[in-house]
């Protein structure tokens, strides 16, 4: 695991997200100027852009981002397995857990193969009734899927083009999962015109309660 790149990405994220979040909450849905802002630079942070106008990336950065992706996928796969093992999901929620759970397992397998020996062992997870209580299950699923998607979207610009091409096959599936979970909660599956990236620091806070130390 290479520390440097992720730390740098996180510090860029700190500047990035409040700006984009502010744009998206209000004007992104309808406004064109704000969307242009997101497209033209706000989404990657002005300072970071100035330093690196072109995407580049490195094998070390790729590995670091994929390693974090693997953690997210392992956590999600464990969450759906726990939810199904709890036996209290019914109807479309149960179907959602089965379908999405199997896809997260496929993502774990894919990333593990890609990382090879550097994949490492999975931490242990504990979800309590966040997974097994049907009402909490949907809310937790939305949180985990939105966070996973937001991290992928935030970090993807740091990948080499080849790895980006591979990762993008996973990212839009995570977006579908997030949309489906939102639909199950009666929310709009696509709330804004442009998705907002999430920092790794924010994601760590979201995932922390479920990772057994």
């Amino acid at each position: 695991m290479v520390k440097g790149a992720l730390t740098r990405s996180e510090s860029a994220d700190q500047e990035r997200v409040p700006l984009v979040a502010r744009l998206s909450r209000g004007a992104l849905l309808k406004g064109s100027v704000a969307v242009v802002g997101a497209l033209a630079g706000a989404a990657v942070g002005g300072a970071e852009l100035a330093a690196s106008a072109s995407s580049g990336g490195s094998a070390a950065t790729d590995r670091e981002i994929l390693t974090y992706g693997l953690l997210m996928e392992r956590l999600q796969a464990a969450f759906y397995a726990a939810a199904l093992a709890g036996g209290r999901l019914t109807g479309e929620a149960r179907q959602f857990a089965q379908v999405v759970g199997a896809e997260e397992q496929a993502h774990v397998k894919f990333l593990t193969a890609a990382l090879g020996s550097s994949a490492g062992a999975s931490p242990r997870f504990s979800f309590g009734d966040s997974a097994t209580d049907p009402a909490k299950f949907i809310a937790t699923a939305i949180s985990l899927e939105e966070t996973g998607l937001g991290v992928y979207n935030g970090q993807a610009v740091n990948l080499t083009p080849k790895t980006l091409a591979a990762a993008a096959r996973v990212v839009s599936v995570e977006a579908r999962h997030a949309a489906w979970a939102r639909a199950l909660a009666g929310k709009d599956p696509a709330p804004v015109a442009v998705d907002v990236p999430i920092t790794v620091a924010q994601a760590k806070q979201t995932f922390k309660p479920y990772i057994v130390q």
Partner: protein
Amino acid sequence: MTNSDSISLKVDDFDVDGAVREAFERMPQHTRSGFLGRTVAAGAAALGAVAVWPALASAKSDPGDITILNFALSLEYLQASFYTEAEQIGALRGALAHQANVVGTHERAHVKAFKQLLGSAAIKEPAFDFHGVTENPDAFRSTAVAFEDLATAAYKEQAPLIKSRSYLAGALAIHSVEARHAAWIRRLAGFLPAAHAFDEPLTDAKVVHIVNSTHFVTLKDPTTSMEAKPRFTG
């Protein structure tokens, strides 16, 4: 990164539920090749001039990026026009009408964003004829499924080709919204919102081929328009 699944993509593989085919085979057939085939697939030939245009975006942009942004714009034009027309006709009800309203708002925002980013390098909006699919809820639903899965696959193919970090960030943020749209309408159409563990990309040539096969794009090129005008022979 190795792709252990190693899926070779054909349009038929992409069109897993037959939604594209089902929606598009109903379309009246015309023989004239579509606008997108000439301007987008032609790529450099059609857009080669943009690099010298003094637009804000093109002043520093990689010519390849401009081509990709225009390709994205063409898909957003198509989608925005489709949802706007469906909403104006008013044949949709309930959850479907709400989907068309919200998603249409997003697609129109995407159009405006790309147009402002591209400035004078932006391709012009073609004329569309949706041949009645916006007037019928079932036809609307299957066409929307096809459009959204297509847009997701198109952005996925193009994203790694984008040189500019800022354009890439924007494209990725739209890519995942298109995937949400796809999941949303698939659920309303009775398809699994996320039918596969991996979404596959689709080349611009294949995307253009599919769009052209719908004959939804009707704009004549300038030469054709001139020829269609009665000559003044006085």
